[in-house]
Each structure stands twice: as C-alpha cells, then as structure tokens.
C-alpha cells in the first residue's frame, strides 16, 4: 500500500459513499489522509491531491458484508452508529478502524486503549447517550392530532429516535424536526420516513393544548422538594442546551 501524505478522498456524504472510499483505497493500493464530503471539502488546500469517489452500491455492499465476515457482526452496527456521530473527521477514524479490523479480526473491538478505537467508541457512546437523553427530553405539542417536536442535537440522533418513537406510538402521526442537521422523521400509521427538511413553521397552539402545557408546568414545579433545592444537580443531569425545546421551561 502506498501511504500518500496529501491524498484526500471526496465522497457524497452517505454511508454507502464512505464504504466506497474504503473499497477504492484497497483497489488502488493507496491510503488517504482525509476523507471528506463535498460539503466539507470546500477549496482544496495547497498541495492537497483530491480524488472524487463515485458511490457504487455493489462496492459498498461488498465492504459492508466484509465487516461482518472479517471483523464481527457488532462491528457493522458500530460503523453504522459511528457514521451518525458528530466526531470531527469521523470518516478517517472509521477508515482506520476498518483497516485495523481486517488485520486483527474481532479483537479490534477490545482494543480500547488504541487511539483510533478509543476515540470512535467514545464518540459512539456520546451518540447513544444523547439519543437516550432525547428519548426523555423530546416534547410533543399536538396540532390538530399531529404530534410535533423540534430538537437541536449535536449528533444525528434521528434514526435512533425514530425507532424508539415509532415503537412507542405506532398508531399516531408524529414529526420530529432536527434543526442542527435540517432533517426530520415523519411517522404515520402507514409508515415512517426520514427526510431532509430546511424549515418548519407551526401554527399557534389551541386552548386544549395550552391547558396541558399549564398542567405539566405545574407538575414539574410542584414535584420538587424545596428543602432539597439543587439546581447544579438538575443541570448536570439535564444540561441547559436541552431546555429551550422543553415545554416545562417555556415562558
């Protein structure tokens, strides 16, 4: 393999596209130093040699299948989740992880002290924690029978949240809008759709809905024991960045 110190792969930003980068690097016998999306790439830096990698579903499938065969089934889930994290340059970490996986087999998952593996595991844990938080902190407001929620997560938590809420409210119609990544998940009893969404404007809420907001705020306030007042503990468990979208903290 040729270790090219200024080779940068550019891909279309999909998981399949990323897997094709792995495929091409093996076919072409070269190791990229960066893997970026068109969006992040911008102007190439001086001395950077950029290479556009076309997405080919067959190639992506080969790599995806090889992760199970040569590394472990859990490694497939791990790579899928790693792709959703907000880790800067996650692609190059994932690329190195897959290379290591081909070399060491399933024991790569145990190499927690390795920088590549350790960094990725931390990023995935961060994603899982954030998604678990949102399972609780998402607040739906009901507009004419449709449940709507807006969130600003750091990681791309929507695919994980979608599974959870679809399971929980199978017969409802709901929408969760992710402002950070301009995406939304829309669920109807007939099916669920993950889609790009650049803007969401909502009508004013009706009186029945207002009444529930008031009831919930009343409960949230009353349940606290004054003698145990501990705002620091509250913020440790529920950092302020979540508060903006939560019914109990709206004015």
């Amino acid at each position: 393999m040729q270790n090219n110190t200024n080779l940068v792969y550019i891909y279309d930003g999909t998981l399949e596209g990323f897997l094709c980068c792995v495929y091409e690097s093996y076919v072409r016998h070269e190791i990229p130093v960066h893997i970026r999306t068109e969006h992040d790439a911008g102007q190439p830096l001086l001395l950077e040699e950029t290479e556009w990698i076309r997405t080919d579903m067959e190639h992506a499938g080969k790599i995806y299948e090889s992760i199970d065969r040569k590394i472990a089934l859990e490694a497939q889930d791990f790579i899928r989740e790693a792709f959703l994290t907000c880790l800067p340059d996650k692609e190059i970490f994932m690329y190195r992880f897959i290379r290591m996986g081909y070399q060491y087999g399933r024991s790569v998952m145990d190499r927690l002290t390795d920088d590549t593996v350790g960094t990725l595991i931390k990023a995935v844990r961060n994603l899982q924690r954030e998604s678990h938080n949102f399972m609780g902190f998402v607040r739906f407001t009901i507009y004419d029978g449709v449940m709507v929620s807006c969130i600003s997560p750091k990681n791309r938590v929507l695919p994980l949240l979608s599974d959870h809420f679809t399971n929980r409210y199978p017969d409802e119609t709901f929408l969760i809008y992710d402002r950070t990544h301009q995406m939304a998940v829309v669920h109807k009893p007939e099916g669920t759709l993950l889609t790009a969404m650049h803007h969401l404007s909502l009508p004013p809420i009706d009186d029945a809905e207002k009444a529930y907001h008031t009831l919930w705020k009343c409960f949230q306030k009353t349940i606290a024991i004054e003698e145990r007042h501990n705002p620091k503990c509250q913020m440790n468990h529920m950092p302020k960045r979540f508060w903006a979208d939560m019914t109990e903290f709206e004015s």
Partner: protein
Amino acid sequence: MDVLEKLAILTDAAKYDVACTSSGVDRSGQPGKTGSAVASGICHSFAADGRCISLLKVLMTNQCVYDCKYCVNRTSRDTQRTAFAPRELADLTINFYRRNYIEGLFLSSGVLKSPDYTMERMIEAIEILRTEYSFNGYIHVKAIPGADNSLIQRMGLLVDRMSVNIELPSEDSLGQLAPQKTPEAILRPMGLIRAGIEENKSDLVVYRHAPKFVPAGQSTQLIIGATPDSDHRILTLSEGLYKKYNLKRVFFSAYTPIVDDPMLPSLFSAPPLLREHRLYQADWLLRFYGFTANEIVDAKNPNMNLAIDPKCNWALRHLDQFPIEVSRASYERLLRVPGIGVLSARKIVQARRACSLTFEGLRKLGVVLKRARFFVTCQGKVDEGVVIRPDTVLRGLLSKNDLRMLPAASGDQMTFLDVPDMARSLGGMPVNAFGYLPEKGTRENAKQYEFGIHI
C-alpha cells in the same frame, strides 16, 4: 375544584416518595396500543431539586384515615384535601404520555374510608388506562397495606411494579410513629407480591401468553433520620429484603421535617442528605459490588463514616488486601478498588484481552485514577508519583466534594483533624490501625429478627 388545583395538591402530597424509576421491564409497542417500556428506564425531566422525573407521581387522594406522625397526609393535619376521579387521572396520564412528558404513572394514595375501597378506586383508574385507552406504558403502584389479597392479585396483573413502603426500619419506631400500622400489614402484601411473581414465572413456562404479574418486581422505601435507627439496622434490613423478598430496589428518603412533634426531629433540622447519599452508596455495594451489609457496618460500628464513602472506608480497613494487579485480578476483586466502578471494571477486563495495560492505558479507557492509583499496580509497578502511606492515601481519597459536604467543613478550610475517627489514626499509627474506630453515640441492641426477616 378543577384538575389543575387537584394536580397541584396531589403532587405536593406525593413528592416525598423517592422512587421514580421506570426500569425493570422491556416491553415493545404493539399496533393498536399506546406505549412501550424500556428496561433501563428513561428520565423525562429533572426537578429543581435534581431528582429525576420519569413517572407522573401523584396520589389518588390525600385524604387518610391513618395518623402516622411523620406523614404530610395524616388525618390530624390541617390541609386541603381532594381526590382524583378515576377517569380524570386516566385522562391526565394518557395525555401527558402522548406528549412524551412521562414514562408512565406512579400511583399511591392516602387511605380513603378503608384500604379495600382505596385499592378499588386505584384499580378502576388503571383499568380505564389499560383497557379503554390501550395504555401499554409503565405503571408503578403502591399497594395499600391492609387491602384484601384478591385486590392485590387483580392489581398485580395490571401494573409493572407494585411496592409497599416499609418507611420505618424497626418495629419500635413503627409502634411509636405509626401505631395504626403493624409490620404484618406491611409484610403480608410484600409476601403476596413475591409469591405472585414466582407463581407467574412457572405459569409463563407452561403458557407463553399467561398475563404477567408485576413483571418489573417490587421495591420499598425507608425513611432516614426520623428515628434513631442505625445504618447497620437499615442495611441489614435492606439486605434481608433483597434476599428474602427479591426486591428490585430499596429506596432511602432523608426525612424532611414537615410536622412539629416531640418524637420527631425539629422543624428546623435539615434533611440528612449526606447520610442518605452514603446509604445509597452502600446499597449499590450490596447490589452490584458483591459486598455484604456486615462488611460495610457491623454491630460494633453501627453507623457509616460520613467523611468518606463506604467502599473507601472498607478499603482503608483492608489495606493488607491491596495493591491488586490490574492485568490479573478477577472482575470481583477489581470491583473492590475505590474509584473503579462496574463500567471501569468491565472495560479493564475487556481491554486486557487485547493488550497489556499501563496506567496511561487505564486513563485512556476512562478509568478515573484519582483514588484507584493508591490501590492498584500495572505489571507490578505503582503509578508515577504515588507514595503509599496512610496520610497520602487519605489525602488522595477525600474528594473536594466529600470535604465540602461534611458539616464541619462549612466555611473554614478543612483539616484532617476535623474528620472524625481519622484524626487518631493519623497520629503516626501503622497502616493497619487505619481502621474504623468505634463511633460514639447510638447503641444498638442487635436483634436477630427484624420485621420477621432473619438477618
């Protein structure tokens, strides 16, 4: 009275119950139903006191025929009384649930007319939720002591968790503060729930779709600091409950003075939060770390040292068992190291399969070495800069937080001389004299049987 006023009164009356967990059962959603349950539990919000809000925690009514001295709802207290109609409560729950405010319902109640009548009203509300509204989320109820067996049986098939609060850890305390309740009335429903769960398990083997009886198990609550009961009594009772009644959790509630009574702490005393915190730490040691109650406290030293956490305290008294070698020690031994918890121990066991561990490697794993470094070696070496002497170990063990939480530390800078018991052992005594010197104060006449539980 409208629902908002009722909610305010019945929430305020329920807030002293600490349990708010929605854990213990995994139940997938179903077409035609609303809701699911997640075994780990989900926190939906946090109140200003830092406690998790997972369930809609309310009382069915705050009217009560009992006059337990420690309770806000006792009959002799002058306060506004109200009750939810079963349908009102079901509506509130399902509407909160659809908006993802809550993970489910936590229903308790004062005793209205009789235990049976109260239970029937609670069952009515929950039946509306489960059948009419097809609610498939989490429900935790408090069984009413003294209610008929058949009602407990019926309730058990509707809910995920059912529990009975013991509240006072000894028969004497119960006799003084809650003369209308007997240990029998509390323990009978606990026994029934346990038997129901066991029986249900064997039914499920035969009939896969047999209705589930209290699938998330039962829990209970003990009030801390309202009575002179020692930590030893509380922990041995908890241990007995875990073993004999298969309880999922024993919760501790620091007593908040709400009532002026000569038999209770004065209205101006603060709730013993630090003691509650230490008891929870000890409870974790019992449930996840393989400790027994007698390793944490014993009849000679019936109370925990508030200055340091119980695991550190144990380690200091057993310095002869340390340091342990990270690359070879069993999982159980790793768990005994101060600063190494369940997650860290698992990570160590996993990582050492792939490569040998150094202190640098431990740090990369995310193992917090602040305290652990005094108790472990990596490939036979101690961490750089670590000198294992009683005073350095002690300084390393006391966190800033520990020092701040100590009552004596308020304001002035803390010195070791302020730490009870520690002062004497620092007077140039050898390592193994570091132990837990007998504490002044409460004497305990150790009982063999407590609450009918052999301890």
